[in-house]
């Protein structure tokens, strides 16, 4: 049975063809595919559903029929009304595609896509890049806040790493070489933007106010730690600081972030979600899913890839063959920027601009956008912009100066020359040089900061070591919202066993 719409289309087409000759035969195979033959042009035309209206059909159909009659063509079957050699576009459900008559591959090693350049405002010697575009300049106050956080992060990392080596807890990983990515991005966000981290973003937590005591509590898994000792070290989580509890499998947090952004968009909350992931994690299927979903849904999520050159021992050139992770963004329909991850000012600017773009607000136009932390305006749709909310991809290029973790010895797969060369490009030192040039920082302040931080970290570790571990009976809580009978039974059995054999339970683990 034909729908009303297709009857109207058929009538229109018959009328158009009537201009060329007598319509001989009209038969309808389905509601939307019908054949028409007319005496001047021996052509049977089948029409497929298409997004353009019958008026345009008529136009291109006329052009097509002119062509047919001038060529004296026999039976012609057209897939869509405008798919003829006289037209320039192919209309398919995916969109409108221009034609080419040349057989030319694009992409691949012979004809690679152009490499996306790296945005940078401070060079490797700590000097301003002349004529750099810095839409969000950093004040002295903000610069010092960012620098002290980077320095504290670096010291904290070094000391916690050493503490693990001394056996105080089982595992640690540092973000050495990526301090600028951590702090620059954290500073560019609003404190309520939900962060989904991979595991090398402790700087974001530090920026938002996670204390050294809280870090130490989590590393030691003691009773004060809100995760109740259930996750391994560095798997922090804090709803107050909008930082989701870290989950070990790589890239699983990427669709989570899209889900959170979808929640914000649906409820019209002016917030973005932010997800960090590495160059290795971007190979996971979840990364592809997250990119694609975010673009299709227009979800306000900022994808921040920390491309630090290594995934444990796999160097980046064995992880992908394309133009890194930034090269993928445009093909998903995601606005993308590659940034020098060692330049904290560039990272900061990129994230502030990305945030505005993700919310569908004006950005990058010399300070029109609201400053971070004020929450901005509504989602998209203002008179100044026709952009809706959507994802943004930032690829921050840096180098993993440290080992992958305390379980890794990277000298087994990279040379000490390479590591030495990169240590010389330490982003903390680079920014310090920039600050010193401005007269905003000096040696004495540096020494004092490092000394104070070392003392604070040691104090935090000592304090955390004094706190007992969580009760053994908490092993069974939070599996569900309330404890079901089978877990009650298991708990009773476990506690009863421990009471009968107290030596199996370490002395710093209370039973109940």
């Amino acid at each position: 049975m034909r729908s009303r719409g297709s009857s109207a289309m058929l009538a229109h087409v018959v009328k158009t063809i009537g201009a060329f000759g007598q319509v001989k035969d009209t038969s309808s195979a389905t509601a939307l595919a019908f054949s028409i033959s007319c005496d001047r042009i021996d052509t049977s035309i089948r029409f497929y559903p298409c997004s353009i209206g019958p008026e345009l059909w008529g136009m291109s159909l006329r052009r097509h029929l002119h062509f047919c009659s001038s060529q004296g063509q026999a039976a012609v079957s057209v897939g869509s009304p405008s798919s003829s050699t006289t037209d320039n576009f192919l209309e398919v459900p995916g969109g409108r595609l221009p034609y080419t008559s040349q057989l030319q591959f694009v992409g691949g090693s012979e004809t690679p896509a152009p490499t996306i350049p790296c945005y940078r405002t401070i060079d490797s010697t700590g000097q301003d890049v002349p004529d750099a575009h810095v839409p969000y300049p950093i004040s002295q106050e903000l610069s010092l806040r960012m620098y002290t956080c980077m320095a504290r992060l670096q010291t904290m990392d070094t000391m916690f790493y050493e503490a693990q080596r001394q056996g105080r807890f089982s595992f640690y990983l540092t973000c050495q070489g990526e301090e600028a990515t951590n702090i620059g991005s954290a500073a560019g966000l609003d404190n309520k933007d939900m962060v989904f981290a991979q595991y090398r973003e402790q700087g974001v937590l530090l920026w938002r106010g996670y204390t050294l005591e809280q870090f130490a509590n989590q590393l030691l898994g003691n009773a004060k730690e809100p995760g109740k000792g259930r996750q391994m070290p560095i798997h922090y989580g804090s709803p107050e600081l909008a930082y989701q509890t870290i989950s070990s499998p790589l890239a699983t947090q990427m669709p989570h972030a899209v889900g959170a952004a979808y929640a914000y968009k649906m409820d019209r909350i002016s917030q973005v979600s932010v997800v960090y992931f590495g160059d290795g994690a971007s190979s996971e299927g979840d990364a592809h899913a997250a990119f694609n979903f975010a673009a299709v849904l227009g979800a306000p999520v900022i994808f921040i890839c920390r491309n630090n050159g290594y995934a444990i021992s796999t160097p980046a050139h064995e992880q992908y063959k394309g133009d890194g992770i930034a090269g993928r963004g445009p093909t998903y329909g995601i606005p993308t920027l590659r940034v020098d991850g060692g330049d904290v000012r560039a990272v900061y600017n990129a994230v502030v601009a990305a945030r505005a773009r993700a919310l569908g607000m004006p950005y990058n136009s010399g300070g029109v956008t609201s400053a971070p932390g004020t929450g901005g305006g509504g989602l998209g749709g203002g008179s100044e912009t026709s952009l809706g909310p959507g994802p943004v991809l930032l690829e921050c290029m840096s180098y993993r100066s440290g080992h992958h973790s305390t379980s890794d010895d990277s000298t087994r797969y990279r040379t000490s020359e390479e590591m030495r060369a990169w240590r010389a490009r330490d982003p903390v030192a680079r920014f310090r040089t920039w600050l010193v040039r401005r007269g905003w920082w000096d040696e004495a302040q540096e020494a004092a900061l490092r000394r104070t931080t070392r003392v604070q970290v040691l104090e935090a570790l000592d304090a955390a070591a004094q706190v007992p571990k969580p009760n053994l009976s908490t092993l069974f809580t939070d599996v569900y919202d309330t404890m079901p009978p089978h877990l009650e039974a298991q708990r009773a059995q476990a506690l009863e066993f421990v009471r009968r054999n107290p030596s199996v339970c370490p002395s710093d683990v209370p039973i109940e």
Partner: protein
Amino acid sequence: MLASRNVRPAAGHRMAAAPGQRALLAGHPGRRVMVAAKAQKKEIMMWEALREAIDEEMERDPTVCVMGEDVGHYGGSYKCTFGLYKKYGDMRVLDTPICENGFMGMGVGAAMTGLRPIVEGMNMGFLLLAFNQISNNCGMLHYTSGGQFKVPMVIRGPGGVGRQLGAEHSQRLESYFQSIPGVQLVACSTVRNSKALLKAAIRSDNPIIFFEHVLLYNVKGEVGDKDEVACLERAEVVREGTDVSIFTYSRMRYVVMQAVNDLVKKGYNPEVIDLISLKPFDMETISKSVRKTRKVIIVEECMKTGGIGASLSAVINESLFNDLDHEVIRLSSQDVPTAYAYELEAATIVQSSQVVDAVERVCGGRVAATV
């Protein structure tokens, strides 16, 4: 955990006849208590009941949303979200690209951010692609975050052996999921319990994996009103009896009740219990039944190895050993991929004649009640 009234099925279920199959009557009331029939109540199909549940819960709570393939404009492959996008919009009934792990992860993230997503797998078997997100994140994050983040999701979809759908579309995921700590497994079977249980699942703060059966969507029956919310952890006593306890769930309930028709004629009095809660088991109802009859037959559609019956059998042996007169019998599907051919498919799953045979073996001979 949310608990309301125990839901008893109304009398006289009728299964829509598939081509080439006789219609089955799902059992006489026997001695069980009957719910007072409301003469005016019309019968609806299970897909409509599920749709009503989703609609009512979405209306009641603005944080409830649906995501999955073809759930929005198409209305769902089994019509469980038919027309809901018109009422709630494209965001709350979200059509997703094809990536089960992707949209399952999206659901986890949305749930941790304050929504209550219902994630639909077009077929339960496809959710194998989402196993990583379900196991490592959905089931774990409440625990590993120390209770700071919760994941109030419902993961639902049709599973079970259909009618010649081939091996990949005939998976029984309850066996694979049952070990995951942190998720609850619920299997609906009747029109009434499907609606009441889905409502409860949506309101629960735990992640619930909600098993529907591909062949039950057109079963007709009565439903409760919008306040009827079942208890997710309570099994259903389908038929009280004395001879043997038959534990079953999902479509096998109907197979068992068909066998019960024959068994009653032969003079047996089996007790039939629909497990409903596959994890955790309702040990209160289960042990009460075992202590009464002292014989257990488990009838399930999942494979024998590592199935729900395997877990239930172990638990019954451990906790009710001295209450048993006979070893626990398990009637399960064969440990083979489900063949396409009709006869082979029928041979891989449990048929009612096997249930009759098992009861006869376990209970011994009986004098027939009447001729």
